[in-house]
């Protein structure tokens, strides 16, 4: 047909032209835009919080990974050694010798700044003890120039990383403004510098008075043993429970009871599991307090519902035709499940388990109640078995312990611990995602 006929399709009613947007529609479209903006705003707020959180974590946590050290080359002669050992205050004598060496080193680099023993003590702690210990252990090194690497105090550390600033700085018995000048001079001379803090990753917790020496390593080990317990209990039990509920359970009251229980347990606050652990495992069964095995048991009970729910979903995703095929060949129901359905569902089950483990790894509240907080994890367990039963801390519990300490220098450590914890969680989640991508099957 030609355009002529189209023109004949003339407006019939007194209807409005479609090409003019009327006032009402304009109002409605404005409302539409506003509504949509609210949606975008909500997403933006959510993402904004995420960004703030990530920035806060990294900004406050990265200082935990560096430490400030003083490099001093220092030689102690035999006479000086004997002289120092014969005195009443032995470490003081060593300190004096050290200060002398430091002064020479400073003079060499052209820095002239008066300093006294007290300010060195404020910057680097009691050096004398460290030096004495070294030479007593290595008497053959006497007379040889030895370079010492001495950890600076947490406040100097804070000054180097920007936590402590000169504005509004007030002299205290821990640090004075003059000390800061000295620190600057030492830095110019290349004597004081920051380096990567391996001790934070591999070390154990220190006492409340030594934030610089605190490390998260021991509690990583504690968490590791807890996760072993959780993995080796919750995976078999979760899979067995899911197989029963999904493949064998008759529809009856008992099955309903189990189902209701699982869905409710999944929503019970984690602290209630802590109470359960305290009352049953510690008070009633007399298992050792603060032991990873108890933490593992509590976290297992807490993780089971999650694992059961995801395992059932993966079992459910295996089409019934697979079961029918196995049954049709004369396999028993048990054989059809264990030989065919379970292997097919395994990637999904593992994914769910890893996510459950990641959840358990970050959980803190139940650990507070079974005594994993407040315990100072000073060392690594001596053996594999001890790893389960010896008191230890766990990563989130260690972070909480640090956050609860009075010295603000521990806050850096807490944030640093969070970075480590999140790295573990990230790794676990990435593994889960890869598993899912790699083995995902569409029926």
């Amino acid at each position, binding site marked *: 047909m030609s355009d002529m006929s189209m023109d004949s399709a003339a407006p019939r009613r007194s209807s409005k032209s479609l090409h003019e947007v009327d006032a009402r529609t304009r109002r409605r479209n404005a409302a539409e835009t506003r509504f949509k903006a609210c*949606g975008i*705003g*909500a997403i933006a707020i959510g993402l904004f919080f995420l960004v703030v*959180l990530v920035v806060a974590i990294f900004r406050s946590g990265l200082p935990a990974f560096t430490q400030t050290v003083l490099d001093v080359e220092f030689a102690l002669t035999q006479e000086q050694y004997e002289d120092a050992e014969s005195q009443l205050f032995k470490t003081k004598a060593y300190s004096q010798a050290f200060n002398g060496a430091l002064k020479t080193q400073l003079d060499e680099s052209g820095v002239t700044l008066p300093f006294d023993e007290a300010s060195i003590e404020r910057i680097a702690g009691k050096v004398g003890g460290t030096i004495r210990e070294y030479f007593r252990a290595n008497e053959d090194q006497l007379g040889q120039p030895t370079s010492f690497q001495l950890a600076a105090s947490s406040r100097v550390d804070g000054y180097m990383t920007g936590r402590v600033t000169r504005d509004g700085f007030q002299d205290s018995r821990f640090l004075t403004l003059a000390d800061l000048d000295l620190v600057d001079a030492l830095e110019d001379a290349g004597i004081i510098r920051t380096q990567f803090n391996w001790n934070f990753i591999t070390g154990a917790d220190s006492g409340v008075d030594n934030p610089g020496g605190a490390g998260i390593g021991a509690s990583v080990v504690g968490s590791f043993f807890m996760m072993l317990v959780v993995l080796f209990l919750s995976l078999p039990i979760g899979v067995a*429970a899911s197989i029963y509920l999904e493949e064998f359970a008759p529809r009856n009251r008992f099955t309903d009871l189990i189902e209701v229980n699982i869905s409710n347990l999944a929503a019970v606050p984690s602290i209630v599991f802590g109470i359960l652990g305290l009352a049953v495992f510690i008070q009633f069964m007399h298992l050792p307090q603060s032991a990873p095995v108890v933490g593992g048991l509590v976290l297992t009970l807490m993780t089971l519902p999650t694992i059961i729910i995801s395992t059932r979903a993966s079992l459910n995703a295996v089409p019934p035709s697979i079961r029918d095929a196995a049954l049709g060949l004369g396999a028993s129901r*048990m054989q059809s499940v264990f030989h065919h359905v379970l292997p097919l569902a395994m990637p999904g089950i593992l994914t769910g388990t890893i996510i459950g483990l990641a959840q358990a790894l970050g959980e803190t*509240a139940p650990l507070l109640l079974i005594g994993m907080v407040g315990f100072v994890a000073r060392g690594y367990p001596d053996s594999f078995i001890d790893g389960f039963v010896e008191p230890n801390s766990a990563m989130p519990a260690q972070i909480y312990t640090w956050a609860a300490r009075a010295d603000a220098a521990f806050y850096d450590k807490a944030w640093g611990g969070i970075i480590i914890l999140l790295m573990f969680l990230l790794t676990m*989640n990435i593994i889960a995602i890869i598993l899912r991508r790699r083995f995902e099957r569409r029926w």
Partner: protein
Amino acid sequence: MPLLWLILIVLAIAAAGYVLGRSRALASAGGDIRQLHSLPSYYGSNAALKAVVPALLLLVLWLIAQPLYINSVISGTLPDELISEGSSRGLLMAEVSRTAQGLDLAVSQGVIDEGVASDPAADFNAMTDRLKQAGAIVTSQITQPVLNAAQRYRSMSHTGTAIMSIAVIIIAVLGAFYGIRQSSAQFRARNVVEQGVRVLLVAAASIAVLTTVGIVLSLVFNTIEFFRLYPASEFFFGLSWAPSFSGRGGSSELGVLPLLWGTIYISIVALIVAVPVGLFAAIYLSEYAGSKVRAVAKPLLEVLAGIPTIVYGLFALLTVGPLLVSIFGDGGVLGVSWQGGGRAVITAGLVMGIMLIPFVSSLSDDIINAVPQAMRDGSYGLGATKSETIKQVVLPAALPGIVGAILLAASRAIGETMIVVLGAGAAARLSLNPFEAMTTVTAKIVSQLTGDSDFASPEALVAFALGMTLFVLTLGLNVFALYIVRKYREQYD
């Protein structure tokens, strides 16, 4: 660790049973597996199962029953006059068992030898020092009767453990033997093994029920114990929370209302943050966003849900708290001085709200997606805009589900611990000011159970009553919410 060895021995017996049962069955069929009723491995498994299951069952039952039995026997021998004012038999028994543990510890560390540890004439003063030296927890001076009771306790549990080990091993051997005897070509090993496996599966599924039973029992018994020491009416209706620090009761005021108010107030603040943001995010993601935006924004938002609560707690304590003080505090941006310290209702509420955003949004997302497309088409077909469709058709249709989701979020907020422990403060208060520090049920459970007070004192036991309150509250919300959500799902299935 003898328990581990015992389990290993049982497993070894089972392994032997497996091998013997399998070979015996094969032998009975003259080495021709076609003559067997089941595959050879089933005969082996039969013997192994018969060795392991009864033995471990006995082990578990014994481990539960033994301390109960010993406790009741020892407790009966303690004379009444030992129980001092403000104390109870339970407290005394706790001391006895602690001392016994201390003795074990001291012996294992070599601080004292076995003979001294079990010598009834040992000097209790010297013993106290020794135990302290070994790092055992000794709250007060050990008295002679307590020491003697602890020594009896120790010897009884040692004997009990020895008898248990022997009994378990015998049962395991008998079971394995029985299983091996059964292994002959006609024996329906597969059916028996499958029956056994089925029982194991049922047992695994029952753990969920056992967990609930465990939770309820541990809460109920300790709560009853608490109400024996402290009047229930004062707990439920008391307007003041002021536990004494002595740890031995007396002047404590343990009213739950200020804690409940703090909990609810913080949860309300959290929901005020989380519900609009989460709901609008869900609406945008499910109705407006293109697949690319969705693929990026949804997982990013869910990252917020995967972050452990300790991180949020620290975030509240060290970042949000100081930030809010710099806005609302003295000398802050607004020039008002409403907020005194970083720990406040608003700090905890805000951070908890952030934590709940992905929770609300992903639940609502599911629920909004469950509204049939036909419903939207119907509305678009009438010339409705997207927002009109969402507001007047989709949301009303999804309302029950969304209410359920919000209730679940509320239950999460009420049960949240780390954020309030670190961000809300420690002072129990009945106040309307969101800039004040308040405390919650969960925070007080933690502080009462991690303090120094004895487990049998009302100050510690009150934590179980608080736990009970929390459990009942969240359970009620959950059951109700799940019911609503399920009803909603059925509507569109």
